[in-house]
């Protein structure tokens, strides 16, 4: 391999954001005809690296070299013209148009007077589709295709250029097993044609099945490359988790109270099935699983945003039906949502008004809002949670992510909920504020709150939880106590590995 020229090489890429060193001198090289896995925990820097490669971010240091030619990437389109093509997890196709139109969108072959050369378009497209051996043709409407076949269209689009390297980002997230087989065939075809492939995935099984080498990122830095043939899942996992992270287990020394929330056999269509757990006052229950495992959907059901198709929810031992967020809030269930800016805050509103929004009606004196009472609440929680803002009049959109998240948490604390659910507590929050938020969550449990934390970051779940519910494709695989859980057993549980063991 060493005498060959790499299809794509990244050298010492450094990318910093205010307060974070997102990529710290990352290097990676992909040979022609190689499938190279890129692995790492969420937040390890994989997506930042890909955004640098696609020209969405400009690195402060380092070089991108395509077939020995140093290249500056300015946009995904320009990267494509250099032969670097991305296949994203989320598809970006015009569903009403034909396969051919989608593949050549923006660069349709033309005849005189700007008319589209349909004949040429369809012939070219069918030629590409033939290489992929798919069961549809150039004139098929994209909206009629399955997700897997739509992904094939994306791949076909990639093949209209002379691709040097193709990057697959979690390509199997929404595919069935049969569809995966087809995808893997296509990948090995590309491989035979000498295309270099970067394959990003969390799924060990796939990684070991189709890749040649595995590179691991952790905390924004490169941790090594392993030959897939000569390594094991354990070795890769070790490299991904490392020892540098704060893995100090949560050692709660306060008494647990009564069961606040009990969930029995809760199901919601195909999103999740037969989910049971309970949370006591003074306890943090963590939910961990891959994207799509059903964690967020469970939370949404508890908060009245989804209607369960079966099962029971009990609050303080009494069965409840939750019909809307307003209903959930009045019963004492609060949610710090995953999408802080989209769901948690009214960004154009000031800090105080955001914080008191759910109780603005209750706080009023007579027909009017009570600004005094509102400001008192704001001052109290500003101090308690150490929210750094010049004052309550500050527009929330101007605060840092960490301070915004504290406002959302304060919004619920001031109402003393029975159950506080925090979905992805530190998404998009810099490292310093992260540990503050973690400590805050621990404090809340110590004060007697029943807290549910949903996270896709393992160190986070391990750090804050008293018990951890591991989920895989809509089911609870196992509930760990903080004494018995190990990184390995947790990764196995959320990858569905214990599923087969348990059944057997």
């Amino acid at each position, binding site marked *: 391999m060493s005498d060959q020229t790499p299809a794509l090489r990244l050298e010492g890429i450094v990318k910093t954001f205010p307060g974070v060193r997102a990529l710290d001198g990352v290097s990676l090289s992909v040979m022609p005809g190689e499938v190279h896995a890129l692995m790492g925990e969420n937040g390890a820097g994989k997506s930042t690296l890909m955004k640098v490669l696609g020209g969405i971010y400009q690195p402060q240091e380092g070089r991108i070299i395509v077939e020995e030619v140093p290249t500056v990437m300015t946009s995904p389109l320009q990267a494509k013209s250099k032969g670097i093509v991305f296949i994203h997890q989320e598809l970006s196709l015009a569903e009403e148009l034909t396969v051919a139109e989608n593949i050549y969108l923006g660069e349709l072959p033309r005849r005189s007077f700007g008319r589209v050369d349909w004949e040429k378009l369809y012939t070219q497209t069918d030629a590409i589709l033939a290489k992929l051996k798919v069961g549809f043709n150039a004139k098929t409407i994209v909206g009629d295709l399955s997700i897997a076949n739509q992904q094939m269209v994306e791949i076909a689009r990639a093949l209209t250029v002379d691709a040097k390297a193709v990057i697959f980002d979690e390509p199997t997230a929404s595919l069935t097993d049969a569809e995966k087989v087809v995808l893997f065939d296509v990948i090995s075809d590309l491989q035979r044609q000498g295309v270099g492939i970067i394959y990003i995935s969390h799924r060990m099984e796939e990684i070991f099945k189709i890749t040649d080498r595995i590179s691991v990122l952790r905390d924004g830095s490169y941790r090594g490359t392993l030959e897939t043939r000569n390594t094991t899942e354990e070795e890769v996992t070790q490299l991904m988790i490392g020892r540098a992270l704060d893995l100090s287990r949560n050692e709660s020394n306060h008494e647990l109270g009564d069961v606040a929330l009990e969930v029995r056999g809760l199901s919601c269509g195909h999103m999740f099935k037969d989910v049971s757990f309970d949370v006591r006052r003074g306890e943090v229950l963590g939910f961990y699983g891959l994207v799509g495992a059903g964690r967020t959907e469970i939370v949404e059901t508890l908060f009245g945003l989804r209607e369960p198709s079966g099962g029971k929810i009990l609050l303080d031992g009494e069965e409840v039906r939750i019909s809307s967020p307003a209903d959930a*809030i009045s019963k004492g269930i609060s949610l710090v949502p995953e999408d802080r800016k*989209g769901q*948690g805050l009214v*960004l154009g509103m000031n800090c105080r*008004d955001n914080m008191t*929004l759910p109780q603005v009606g209750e706080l009023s004196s007579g027909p009017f809002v009570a600004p005094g009472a509102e400001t008192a609440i704001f001052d109290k929680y500003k101090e308690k949670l150490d929210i750094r803002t010049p004052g309550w009049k500050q527009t929330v959109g101007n605060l840092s992510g960490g301070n915004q998240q504290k406002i959302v948490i304060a919004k619920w604390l001031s109402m003393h909920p029975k159950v506080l659910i925090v979905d992805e507590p530190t998404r998009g929050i810099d490292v310093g504020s992260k540990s503050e938020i973690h400590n805050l969550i621990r404090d809340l449990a110590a004060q007697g709150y029943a807290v549910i934390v949903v996270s896709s970051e393992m160190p986070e779940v391990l750090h804050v939880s008293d018990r951890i519910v591991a989920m895989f494709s809509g089911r609870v695989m196992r509930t760990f106590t903080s004494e018995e859980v190990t990184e390995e057993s947790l990764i196995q549980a959320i990858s569905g590995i214990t599923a087969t063991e348990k059944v057997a």
Partner: protein
Amino acid sequence: MESMSKAGIGRFLARQGILIAFAVFIIGFTLANGRFLSPENVMGVVRSSAILGVMALGVTFVVISGNLDLSVGSMMSFSTIVVLDLHDKIGPVLAIPAMFVMTLCLGAFIGFLVGYLKLNSLIVTLGMLSAIHGLTLTYSGGQNMDIADKEGTWFSVFGQGSALGIPVPILIFLLLAALLGIVLAKTPFGRKVYAVGGNGTAATFSGIKRARIVFLCYVMSSFCVAVAGLIQASRSLGSQNTVGQGLELDVLAAVILGGASLLGGSGTIFKTVIGVLILGFIQNGLLLVGLQFYVQFVVTWAIIILAVWLDIAAKRGKLLSTIA
């Protein structure tokens, strides 16, 4: 450096553009016609803006909640025709509440469609513009509506009376503006209107019943329309079926001129009052400098587009989009 100051000028123009344009208009009109800033003319402008202004107050709620209301013009025609017709049939004491109830029902219907059924407000209210026009014509049989005894009714007080030397329409406008200004700025309902328009999802996640808030905004808007219809009917004591036609655009122009964003979540009643006056003075000035009445329609539209453009430009911090 040069590009920095260029961006600065762009941002300044985007933020203050409307006021600058207004100042230019005022200076131009005053130079062209000395009567423009005379007390009689100023009072005249305010008085003739009162009907538009009352409607704009209600539409301010709708726009802040993130929706549109294009039905107010034809709804005002409806209110005017209904109250004039009932005046002679059941007397003004019963006619006024009856008209209010009917108008509020129309507002509630729109509020139901946009709030609870989550239909697009542009389509719903554009449809209602036409439907209510049809309703009015059906009600009146296409005839103009006149009060039989124009001299002998106290009904004319709302449009023609004055108290403390101030015409009643102006008093109603200012009182309603003060009342609704307080509702918007000082009550939990007002706060929720801002939240729903600023980020409807976050409002829902905070336990606010989004549908109910939107519904109430349209009811509020129809209440203002009923008041406007009352003033209109009282002023002329007779009316065509099309008296409010086209007013929806003037109302929208005034609200946007005041600085409420069409994207929802921002605006105040005070700013809307300013917007109403700006629009009133510009339209009046155009007449005073001797332009045809019909030029107004063109200018009003130009103003709406300018205001919307500047709103977007202020948000993205420059006048032109970089993405073609």
